[in-house]
């Protein structure tokens, strides 16, 4: 009995740990503040704003998937509704000349997300697991199709637009230039990230994890898993609404694509690719996916296919996502055996890269033949020119794929062995994995 009470109340953190913890947040705030000084072009400011919005959205999604174990295919509903209400709110405030400044408008989006999550969530969180996933998909379709029917509120295909500069000014900022929008998004991102991190440390956050891991046990202890799932769902909806409102402010328009399946899929991709097992995972994923979608769409017309294939590869080979892969190496680093696996990584990387290049070559050549067969076969993909019509290209692609695949299988098996050895040694060195 004494043991339990002792382990239930950890000692207060040491001063060094506290400094480290708050130092991280202060550091992030400083980086956000100084980022536009370093990269001040309009394009990078827009990218940063998009990343910030995407971070809030992905983190709110992870309240569901990562922390409570609810796979949702319709999270964009709350994002989109938050966006629409924000746009309508801006128009309403401007029309009635209310003294409400723009930085408060995301709160309206958040409240909208919370309201609809509270409304829809009670029904959908009655089930968990696969049934919840299907229900979220059905409800998302319901809202997305309704948006096209209720034209006067959702504006049909064209959407609803607003002018963000006409609201009450704060410190002479009218939020016209992108730099001011960047700071608005950055501030909200910081606040939302801190709030969502704090949420994971509350008793509710802990109970969410318990519901994810063992709902039966939770019921046994005396909690209702449905209520806990519902509360988590409401919080997720709230933060998604904030993200949607920020997106609407950024683009000054809200249309039905905000609520759609593509948006729901994108946030799922971002959170999962980043890694749902760690708080920082969705942040990494949001940054990565935003850069990927902006960067890939410039170099190839079929970037979405690469995106999908990449997602499948992550699900198959790295279910922990990017952060999961990195965190895997922590025991090795602590045990000092990291250097043993690096050579085998280098060996495995070569055939894997060859296989990927072969696949890309095959895809790009096929795309040339099916999308625009009449054009010049000397095409460029990823900035590299090659002849899609020459048999040499096809032979090279085939050889790269086949040989690369065979060698990659062999070399990754060797990575596995080297990994096991390194981990065993690291454990012997006295580091708990």
């Amino acid at each position, binding site marked *: 009995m004494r043991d339990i009470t002792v382990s239930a109340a950890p000692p207060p953190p040491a001063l060094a740990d506290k400094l480290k913890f708050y130092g991280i947040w202060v550091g992030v705030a400083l980086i956000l503040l100084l980022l536009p000084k370093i990269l001040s072009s309009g394009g990078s400011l827009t990218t940063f704003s998009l990343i910030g919005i995407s971070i809030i959205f992905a983190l709110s999604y992870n309240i569901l*998937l990562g922390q409570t*174990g609810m*796979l949702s*295919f319709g999270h964009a509903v709350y994002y989109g509704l938050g966006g629409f209400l924000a746009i309508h709110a801006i128009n309403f405030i401007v029309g009635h000349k209310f003294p409400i400044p723009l930085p408060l408008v995301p709160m309206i989006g958040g409240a909208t997300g919370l309201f609809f999550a509270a409304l829809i969530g009670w*029904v*959908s969180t*009655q*089930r968990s*697991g*696969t*049934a919840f*996933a*299907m*229900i979220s*998909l*059905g*409800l998302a*379709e*319901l809202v997305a*199709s*309704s948006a096209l*029917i*209720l*034209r*006067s*509120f959702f504006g049909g295909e064209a959407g609803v637009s607003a002018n963000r500069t006409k609201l009450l000014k704060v410190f002479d900022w009218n939020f016209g230039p992108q730099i001011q929008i960047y700071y608005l998004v950055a501030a909200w991102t910081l606040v939302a990230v801190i709030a969502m991190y704090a949420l994971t440390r509350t008793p509710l956050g802990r109970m969410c994890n318990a519901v994810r891991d063992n709902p039966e046990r939770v019921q046994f202890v005396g909690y209702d898993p449905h209520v806990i799932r519902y509360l988590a769902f409401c919080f997720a909806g709230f933060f998604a609404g904030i993200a949607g409102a920020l997106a609407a402010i950024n683009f000054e328009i809200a249309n039905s694509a905000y609520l759609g*399946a593509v948006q729901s*899929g994108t946030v*799922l991709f971002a959170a*999962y690719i980043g890694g749902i097992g760690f708080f920082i995972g969705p942040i990494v994923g949001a940054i990565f996916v935003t850069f990927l979608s902006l960067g890939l769409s410039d170099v190839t017309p*079929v970037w*979405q*296919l690469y*995106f*999908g*294939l990449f*997602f*499948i590869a992550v*699900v*198959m080979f790295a*279910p922990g996502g990017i952060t999961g892969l990195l965190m895997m190496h922590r025991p090795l680093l602590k045990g000092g055996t990291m250097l043993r696996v690096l050579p085998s990584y280098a060996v495995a990387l070569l055939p894997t890269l060859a296989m990927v290049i072969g696949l890309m070559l095959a895809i790009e050549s*096929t*795309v040339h033949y*099916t*999308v625009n067969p009449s054009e010049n076969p000397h095409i460029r993909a990823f900035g590299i020119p090659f002849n899609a019509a020459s048999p040499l290209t096809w032979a090279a692609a085939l050889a790269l794929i086949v040989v690369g695949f065979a060698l990659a299988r062999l070399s990754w098996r060797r990575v596995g062995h080297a990994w096991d050895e390194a981990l065993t040694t690291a454990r012997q060195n006295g580091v708990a994995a």
Partner: protein
Amino acid sequence: MLELIVISTLNGVLYGMLLFLMASGLTVIFSMLGVLNFAHASFYMLGAFFGFQISRWVGFWPALLIAPLLAGAIGAAVERYGLRRVHKNGHVAELLFTFGLAFAIEEIVQIIWGKSPVDFRVPPLLDFPAFTIFSTNYPAFKMFMLLVSVAIFLGLLLALKKTRIGLIVQAALTHPHMVGHLGHNVGRIFMLVFGVGTALAAVAGVIAGPALVTQSNMAGLLGPILFVVVVVGGLGSLPGAFIASLLIGLLQTFAVSMNASLAGLLGPLSPDLAQSWLSDIWNVTIAQIAPIMPYLLLVLVLIFRPMGLLGTRDT
């Protein structure tokens, strides 16, 4: 009015049987493997496009056989080399794998056949009106669709109830581990069931392709409705899926043919409502909300019977 009822019932039953052709495979796969195949509708789409391409080369009738076999082979390969690998990462990873697969298949179909609808025609042999009913010509191809889906339904019923493999599949629905303990190669059964399930979806694609629109978004349009069917019927229940398929088929077909709206019904009582902000809800006709009918049904079922019509297991 009678004409409308007869024609809508025929069309509704036809649509429902098509849905069941897919939902049956989806349900059996879910019960056995524990994973809801998000890409199931994509195999329906693959069936339609394979059918289109093969019928261009060798005609419709060989396509009706080859396209499902091809799609079924792809499905079996997906189970063997994809899902089985992902299985150790848990159910979420499995579902996400099929989600990514659905995404990739849609992209690949778009690359090969483009985004606009392809010209998948009804075979000339069946391109005539089967019968005339109250001045409406009912096409023979639709009767053929109905015939094929009913035949497959009966065949499936017989195979499940009367054959040895059907018995094993039935046993594996509820007690997959016990079936494994009894010495059956559960892995091979899973692969077989996945292949047959996706092949059935592809059959639905081949016969629906000429009647509906064969386009790269057809999986995205039908997929959600398919999941509504299995959730409304009760996850893992074949009879439930059958009832839900017919229910949704009839519901949607009847809704499309109804032109009533709140304004038409109650309009004279308060004409000024048509101008207010409620005008959208006031003026919308039942035909216009037909696409969201299945989802409304889903919400109703969830409120009053969360486990689905005939569902028992809470997974």
